[in-house]
């Protein structure tokens, strides 16, 4: 795939974390395999819409959510490793959102009892952006953010 030249995008300014409405446990049903795919949550274009679609309440900033193995700079936005660890007791679900992607929500993981609240996967990032980790525990919602810069290296055209 020969893509045109794109420039290294300057990192976005400090994003003030305005009130977020975050994920409700819409996957309460224990039955995991045939659950419906929440189309609305994955179709939204702004942070607020995404969280509204997930039916969540007001999240509180939390230091007990940590990004693990998530580099400051991604050599290419096509594959960005993201790891999230939640030390909040009784974590029920962890969601990963990319602020500046066309659709914010990348993935939602439901953590049944007995499974450790530690998830890592890889996401696509359209550009340098904040990544939000949303955790739901006992009906309450918590959030942490980390900025990942995307460089668009490469040699020619």
């Amino acid at each position, binding site marked *: 795939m020969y893509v045109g030249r794109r420039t290294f995008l300057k990192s976005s300014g400090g994003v003030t974390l305005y009130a977020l409405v975050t994920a409700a446990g819409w996957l309460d049903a224990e039955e*995991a395999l045939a659950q419906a795919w929440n189309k609305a*949550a*994955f179709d939204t274009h702004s942070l607020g819409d995404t969280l509204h679609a997930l039916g969540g309440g007001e999240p509180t900033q939390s230091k007990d959510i940590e990004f693990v193995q998530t580099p400051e700079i991604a050599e290419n936005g096509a594959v960005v490793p993201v790891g999230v660890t939640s030390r909040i007791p009784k974590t029920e679900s962890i969601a990963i959102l990319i602020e500046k992607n066309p*659709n914010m929500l990348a993935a*939602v993981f*439901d953590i049944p009892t007995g499974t*450790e609240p530690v*998830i890592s996967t890889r996401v*696509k990032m359209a550009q340098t952006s904040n990544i939000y980790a949303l955790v739901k525990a006992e009906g309450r919602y918590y959030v942490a953010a980390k900025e990942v810069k995307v460089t668009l290296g490469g040699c020619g055209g």
Partner: protein
Amino acid sequence: MGEPMKIRATLTGDATEVKVLMNHEMETGQRKDAQGQTIPAWFIQTIGVTWTGKTVLSAQWGPAVAKNPFLSFKFKGGAKGDTLAVRWVDSRGDQRTDEAIIA
């Protein structure tokens, strides 16, 4: 549908660490091919991981999950020789289940 997943399930202490690599294009629907035609969206939507019948993880993914997805997590319990099954369903309704033995 497609190629088998690569699943590694290893018992470490009292927990089983699971690492999965899946073969999937994860098309976002925003890409164009060489002739300028938009390539339609096609991505894994739901994941289910079960250990001897019990769900140890379930997830819903959007097209922002990277191509050839990678997933890693841990759950308490599991014993050497137990069976672990990983199942995905994508936006075309294709699905795939692969199993691995906990080492």
